[in-house]
C-alpha cells in the first residue's frame, strides 16, 4: 500500500476527527485506506496484532459518531473498496464491496430494471458498508423495511483478521443462527464486512407523490392516521414542520413549499400503476378531511425528485440557520406521534431552544433537529438536558432512542432508558463472541457498566 493510503501526519488526520456528528472530535493514530479486501484483512491482522483497536469508516456520514475515531485507534476506511463485484438480475442479487455508495448501486441496478430499496437520506454519499453497520433506514422503510431485509450474505473480517462467510442467498435460512441479521446494525463493533450480498427488487411500475400542506403538524399527523386507517400502504409518509420547510426553501434545494405552512406531508405510493390513482384519491381525501390547505400530486419524475430533495436535504439545509445542529433520532408507535411531538416542542420551548422537526410519520421515526451555538456553554448544556427529556418522552410512549442513526457514542448515555442490565450484558456478551479482544470500535454502542 502506497504512502497516500496510509495517513499518519497529524495534520492530515484532522479531517478524520469527526463523522457526520461534529459534537465529538478525536483524531486517530493513523488512517489506512486499503484498496483490496486482501489488503483490508492484512491491515486488520497487523493492527490487531499490535493490540491496537480498529475503527471502520465508510463515508463518515453517520450521525451518531459510529465512525468517530477512538483514542489510539487506527481508522480503516473503505472508500477505495468501491467495486460492484457482481450484479445477477436472474436471481436479483448483487455482490458489492463495502465502499460502494448506496445510490451508485441503485444506478447500476436500474440498468436491469431493478433497484436497491433502502434509501437513507444520505444515500448519495453513504456507503453500503456503513448501511450494513448501522442497519440504515430511510423514508421508504414503511413499505420496504430497513437494510437488514435486503442483506442476504456477508463476508466479514473478524478480530485478528479471520475471514468468515455469513449466510448467503443460496443457504437455507433455518439451518443456523441468523448471523447476517445479527451482524447488520452491529455498528462496526463485530468486524468489517468485506463483501456484501444484497437483494434487489424490480423497479415499481409507477410512482405517485402527493404533497399536502397543513396549518399544523397535528393536522398532518391526523391525515396520516386517516391514510393508515384506510388500509393504504404508502411507500413513504413524511412530515416536515414549518421550521424545516423554511430552512429547505432558503437552500438550493427549494422545492416550492409555501413558507408560511405549519407542516408539509409527503405521501408516496408505488407499485402497479393501475392502482395508484385510486390510492392517491383516497389519500387526498384523507388530507382534505384533516384540513389540508393545499394538496397537489404528481407522477412526473422531475417534480417528484424535487419534492424529495427538499425532504432529503433538510439536514444540510439547517446548516444555514445556526452554527451547530443536533439531529435527534427516536421512534415511537405511530399512533403516539401527535402527543409526543407536542411534548418535544414543549421541551424545546422550556429550554429556549430552536427545534425543527422532520420525520418518517409512517413508521413513527422522529428527527427533531435542535439548532444551537456550541460556543454558548449554557445553550450547549440546555441542548443536552432537552435531548435527554425528549428521549425519555419517546421511551415512555413505548418507543426507542434511535430508529436509524444508531447508538454510536451519542446515544450510549440513553441506552439504559430502553434496556435493562440483563439485556445490556447479553449484548456485550454477543459482541464478545465476535470480537473477544474488543478491538473493533471499542467503547461504542454499549454504555459503561454501572458502578457496582
Amino acid at each position, binding site marked *: 500500500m502506497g504512502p*497516500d*493510503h496510509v*495517513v499518519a*501526519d497529524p*495534520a*492530515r488526520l*484532522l*479531517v*478524520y*476527527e*469527526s*463523522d*457526520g*456528528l*461534529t459534537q465529538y472530535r478525536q483524531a486517530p493514530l493513523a*488512517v489506512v*485506506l486499503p*484498496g483490496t479486501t486482501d489488503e483490508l484483512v492484512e491491515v486488520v491482522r497487523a493492527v490487531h496484532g499490535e493490540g491496537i483497536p480498529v475503527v471502520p469508516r465508510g*463515508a*463518515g*456520514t453517520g450521525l451518531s459518531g459510529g465512525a468517530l475515531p477512538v483514542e489510539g485507534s487506527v481508522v480503516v*476506511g473503505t*472508500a*477505495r473498496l*468501491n467495486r460492484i463485484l457482481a450484479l445477477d438480475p436472474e436471481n436479483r442479487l448483487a455482490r458489492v464491496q463495502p*465502499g460502494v*455508495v448506496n*445510490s*451508485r448501486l441503485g444506478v447500476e441496478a436500474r440498468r436491469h430494471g431493478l433497484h436497491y430499496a433502502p434509501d437513507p437520506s*444520505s444515500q*448519495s*454519499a*453513504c456507503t453500503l458498508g456503513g448501511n450494513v453497520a448501522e442497519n440504515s433506514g430511510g423514508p421508504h422503510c414503511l413499505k420496504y423495511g430497513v437494510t437488514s431485509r435486503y442483506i442476504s450474505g456477508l463476508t466479514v473480517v473478524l478480530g485478528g483478521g479471520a475471514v468468515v462467510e455469513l449466510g448467503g442467498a443460496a443457504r437455507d435460512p433455518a439451518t443456523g443462527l441468523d448471523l447476517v441479521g445479527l451482524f447488520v446494525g452491529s455498528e462496526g463493533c463485530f468486524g468489517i464486512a468485506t463483501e456484501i450480498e444484497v437483494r434487489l427488487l424490480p423497479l415499481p411500475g409507477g410512482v405517485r407523490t402527493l404533497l399536502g400542506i397543513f396549518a399544523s403538524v397535528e393536522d398532518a399527523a391526523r391525515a396520516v392516521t386517516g391514510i393508515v386507517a384506510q388500509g393504504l400502504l404508502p411507500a413513504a409518509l413524511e412530515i416536515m414542520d414549518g421550521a424545516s420547510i423554511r430552512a429547505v426553501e432558503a*437552500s*438550493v*434545494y427549494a422545492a416550492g413549499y409555501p413558507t408560511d405552512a405549519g407542516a408539509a406531508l409527503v405521501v408516496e405510493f408505488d407499485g402497479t400503476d393501475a392502482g395508484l390513482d385510486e390510492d392517491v384519491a383516497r389519500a387526498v381525501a384523507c388530507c382534505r378531511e384533516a384540513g389540508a390547505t393545499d394538496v397537489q400530486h404528481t407522477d412526473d419524475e422531475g417534480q417528484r425528485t424535487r419534492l424529495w430533495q427538499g425532504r432529503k*436535504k*433538510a*439536514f*444540510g*439545509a*439547517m*446548516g*444555514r440557520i445556526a*452554527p451547530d*445542529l443536533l439531529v435527534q433520532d427516536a421512534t415511537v408507535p405511530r399512533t403516539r406521534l401527535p402527543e409526543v411531538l407536542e411534548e418535544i416542542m414543549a421541551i424545546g420551548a422550556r429550554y429556549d431552544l430552536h427545534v425543527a422537526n422532520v420525520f418518517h410519520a409512517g413508521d413513527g421515526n422522529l428527527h427533531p433537529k435542535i439548532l444551537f451555538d456550541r460556543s454558548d456553554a449554557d445553550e450547549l448544556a440546555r441542548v443536552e438536558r432537552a435531548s435527554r427529556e425528549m428521549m425519555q418522552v419517546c421511551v415512555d410512549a413505548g418507543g426507542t432512542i434511535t430508529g436509524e442513526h444508531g447508538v454510536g457514542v451519542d446515544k450510549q448515555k440513553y441506552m439504559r432508558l430502553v434496556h435493562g442490565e440483563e439485556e445490556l450484558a447479553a449484548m456485550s456478551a454477543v459482541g464478545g463472541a465476535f470480537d473477544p479482544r474488543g478491538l473493533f470500535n471499542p467503547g461504542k454502542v454499549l454504555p459503561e457498566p454501572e458502578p457496582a
Partner: protein
Amino acid sequence: MSEVGILGQALAEHADRLMPCVHCGFCLPACPTYVRLGDEADSPRGRLHLMGAVVEGRLDPASDAFRVHIDRCLGCRACEPVCPSGVEYGALLEVARDVAARARPPALPTRLLLRIFGSRPGRALFLGVGAFLRNTGLASLGARALPGWGPFRSARFGLAMLASTERWEGLRWIRATEGQEAPEDPAPPTTGPRVALLTGCVQEGLYDRVNQATARVLEANGCQVVAMPGGGCCGALHAHGGDLETARRLARTEVRRFLDADVDHVVVNAAGCGATMKEYDELLGGDPAESDAGALARRVRDVNELLAELGPRTGAPVPCRVAVDHPCHLLHAQGIRQAPLAVLKAVPGAEVRLVEDADECCGGAGIYGITHPELGGRIGADKVRSVRATECEVVATANPGCMMQIGAGLRLQGAPEGVMHPVELLDVSYRRAGFYDEERDG
C-alpha cells in the same frame, strides 16, 4: 501575532461562510479527487475542515497537509450544487489558496505561469511561443517523441495540450447528403443586444478561431459586436491559482474597460473566465471598485447562455455525431446545463450525445495535468474513455482548458476525434448556410 495567526486571520474573515458546512459528507462522491484517492483530506468536506482548523489555529497554513490538499483540488466546484447548505466552496478555495501561497510559495510551474500571465507582455510572449510550437508542428512532434514517464510526463502533456489547440479539420470531409438541405431561413434578426467579447488570454493566443467564430455567430443572430482593442486577462487563472492580489488588479482593469464600452452584455466563450467575471463583485469585495464590479458582473453572459436566450438561428446541416461534455465552470459555477445543447440544436444533422460522466471534471483545471501529472492523468484518462464510448466524431465543450485537456488526452492516444467549442460547430453550420458575407470572412 505570528505568521500563522495573520494568515489564519485572512481565512477567519470568511468563517461565516465555513459555518454552514454541517459535515454531512454529501459532497464526497461528487469530488473527482476523493472518488479516486479515497482520502477525505482530498474531499471538499475535508478541505473545508482543514480551513476550519487553520481558522481555529490548530493547523499551520504552511503545513504540507494544508498545501497539498488545497492544491490538489481541481476547483471544479462539483461539490457546490450537491451541498444542501449552500457552502460557497469555490470562493473559500480561492481564499485558502491565497493563504497557502502566502504561507509557502506554490510549486514552480504554478508560480511561473501566474507570473507570466500577470503581465501583458508575458502572456503575449508565452502564448506566442506556444502558437509557434503548435504552428510549426514542433509541439505535436514533441508530444509524440517524449516518453510518458518521470520528468518527461508533464512536458509531454503540455506539448500535447498545445498541439491539440490547432483547428480540427475533420468536419471538412463531412458533407450533407441528398435530402439534407438547409431549412428555409427567416430574415436574419436585426436588432439584437450590443455586446462586447472578452477575447481573453489563452483564447486570444491559441483559440483565436473560437473568438472569430463567436463574433460571427453573434452577429448572425443580430448582435451588435463592439470591437474591444487589446484583450486583457480576466484574472481567473490567478483567482483559481491562489494569487488574489494579481487577480484583483486584472479584474479592476477589465471592469473599467468593459464598463467604458457601454454594452448590454459582455460575452465570454471561456467558462472559467465567465465564472470569475460573474463573481467580480465577490473578488473585489471591499474594494472601491466593488459596485462597478457588481454592475459588470450582472452583464456577463456565457456565449451559449446568450445564444440560448436569443434562440439561435438554425444553420445548414452538418451531419455528425457530437459528444457534449459540460465544463465545470459552466455547469457547477454558472449553473448552465442546457444552453450548449440549445446551441447545438441549431445545427441540423448534428446528433448530440451527452458524455456519460459529463457532469464530472475532465481534469483540465488550468494546468492540473502538468502540476499533478499522475492524478490529472487518471482523471483525464477516465474522461477520454467516456468521450470515446459515445462513438462520436467530435467533442464539444465550451472552455479552452477542457478543450486542451480532452484534446491532449485524445491526441496522446492517437484517437481521431476532434475537439470544438459548440459555437465553432454552429459557425460551420452558418457558413454552409451562407449566412456570412464571404468577402469579409474570406
